[in-house]
């Protein structure tokens, strides 16, 4: 991966959109988004439910006609070259789309026939993918008997069967337990190494978005930020360090005098932001003249990025959100970001 390159050069772009929009009645689900994805990238769409992620994927996969704007996928226009787009992509939907009455291998054969995978590669490819997804032993079982994770793996295998240039994954790990999510990600990253594959995925899990080369943060039908995850997190000004000290005022003065750090005080806590705090803190502790009673360092997460960009948390549907938000707002250094 070339991490230096922020936006892909024209020759290797596999997805590009310009002002892509879709309305449902008077509701604007996607409000004219523009972005491009380079060959071999893992590109993530991060946003809460209802932000327009699935609508965007459906348009790119020719299942939904855009209301406005342009897009090409694998070099083909999504409106005028639908069959060619369909040939070039693999798709794993949010909801299962397997025929549960058929066996794993029958589902894959159907797909191979539908995409015209030549006979000489078909069986070998099915074997390879079922092995990769650790489903070969269950190939003759009805899909009905599969667990949620197995079904998802089978769908990923199916999506790859016809050697697509781009694999679309719509919430690939939704509703799966953490262990299974981890495994699915292992497969996805494995695949990217093995095949010259571009992966476009949507998620509302922050930790999953971290696995992407670049992410677009989408909220209410608009892209609010697009960059590598580290860049987005660093844009918040680095790690948040909180020191518990005897004398807050003199600690702030000393931090400014010696390191030019502007810290804020809240009770006995002094708080400042700094990139690479881990390396900085040991030195500080050795020579700091005020007594330090406690230290916490927190890396800004993509959740923080999302919150600072949109003013609300990404998981508004999760009960823990209130807590997270309160904890977040109680971090003094973050308050200025919000205002």
């Amino acid at each position, binding site marked *: 991966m070339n991490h230096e390159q922020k936006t892909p050069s024209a020759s290797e772009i596999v997805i590009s959109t310009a002002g892509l929009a879709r309305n449902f009645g008077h509701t604007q689900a996607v409000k004219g988004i523009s972005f491009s994805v380079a060959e071999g990238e893992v590109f993530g769409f991060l946003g809460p439910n209802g932000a327009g992620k699935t609508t965007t994927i459906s348009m790119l996969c020719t*299942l939904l006609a855009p209301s406005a704007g342009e897009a090409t996928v694998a070099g083909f226009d999504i409106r005028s*070259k639908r069959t060619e787009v369909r040939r070039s992509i693999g798709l794993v939907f949010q909801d*299962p*789309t397997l025929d549960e009455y058929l066996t794993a291998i029958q589902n894959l054969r159907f797909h191979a026939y*539908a995409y015209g995978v030549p006979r000489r590669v078909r069986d070998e490819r099915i074997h390879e993918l079922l092995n990769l997804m650790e489903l070969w032993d269950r190939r003759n079982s009805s899909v009905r008997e599969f667990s949620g994770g197995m079904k998802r793996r089978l769908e990923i295998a199916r999506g790859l069967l016809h050697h697509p240039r781009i694999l679309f994954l719509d919430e690939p790990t939704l509703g799966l337990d953490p262990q299974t999510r981890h495994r699915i990600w292992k497969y996805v990253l494995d695949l990217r190494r093995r095949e010259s594959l571009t992966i476009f995925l949507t998620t509302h899990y922050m930790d999953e978005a971290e696995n992407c080369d670049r992410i677009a943060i989408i909220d209410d039908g608009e892209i609010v930020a697009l960059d590598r995850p580290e860049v987005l997190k660093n844009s918040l000004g680095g790690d948040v360090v909180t020191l518990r000290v005897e004398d807050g005022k003199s600690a702030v003065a000393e931090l400014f005098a010696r390191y030019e750090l502007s810290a804020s005080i809240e009770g006995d806590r002094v708080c400042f932001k700094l990139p690479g705090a881990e390396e900085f803190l040991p030195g500080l502790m050795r020579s700091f003249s005020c007594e330090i009673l406690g230290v916490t360092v927190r890396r800004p997460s993509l959740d923080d990025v999302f919150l600072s960009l949109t003013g609300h948390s990404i998981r508004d549907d999760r009960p823990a959100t209130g807590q997270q938000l309160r904890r977040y707002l109680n971090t003094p250094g973050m308050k200025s970001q919000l205002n």
Partner: protein
Amino acid sequence: MTGFDLQPRVRVLAAGDRARWRAFSLRQSLRGIWVIAYRELLRFARERSRLASTLGMPIIFMVVFSEGLKRQIGALAVGVDFVKFMYPGIIAMSVFINAIFSGLSVVWDREIGFLKEVLVSPLNRSGVVLGKALGASVIALFQALVMLALAPLFGVPLSLRIVLELIPIVIVLAFSLAGFGLLIGSRMRSQQGFQVLVQMVVFPLTFLAGVFFPVNNVPRWMEIVSKLNPLTYGVDAIRRIFLVGEISATGQNSGHSIIGVTVFGHTTTTIEDVALVGVLGAALLIGAIFSFNRHT
């Protein structure tokens, strides 16, 4: 990449060789037809309960009605008792039901999500619709042949002529009714909705199509409804195959004919029956393709 690359072929075609593009589209449609039909049959074979009910229902109808009514109802024409009369009707009825259920299969696919897998594939929509119709027709034909194999049990005489005539007629009827089923299925969102429709529309139409009684000798209102009902002509086409020999051999009874549908004094022939159903069916299939394109 170890596999194959389809891009160059697509590019050559997109460059504008129209004849080759047409050949390519045709191949795509044909692929759609056989892939979809293949899955319909695979599903049919794997679902034991469906297999059992498909085969069981007409046999139950046959046994219960023929045994139950045999003594009450005498010969409808010389040499044609009630069993002989009803047997072709039951074949026609099971062909209708099987064919219309192709529409249920679309609704089912939509509910389980499998329809998306089909719609995002490069298969074109007309191929998908015709594939569903083909699958249903093969199942309907299989059903008809099983019934045919049971004919000696009901005392219905068979001949090679009957078998050879029945096959093409069943195929035409099945495709036509599949067109009707698919037209509805392309718009329906729930299985329950489809089931209700089958019970409210398809069963009454089937019963009024003369499966159990000759439509030329019923009360006036029923005669009108029956003769407006296209299924009547389908039932008649199949019945003629079985009874035409018997009746011409023994001579036609005076009064109302038990075969042929008499409309304004004209009694239809087999060809007319099949043509009527076939033309209507073709229109329904085309309608189903358009509807499928628009609503999915």
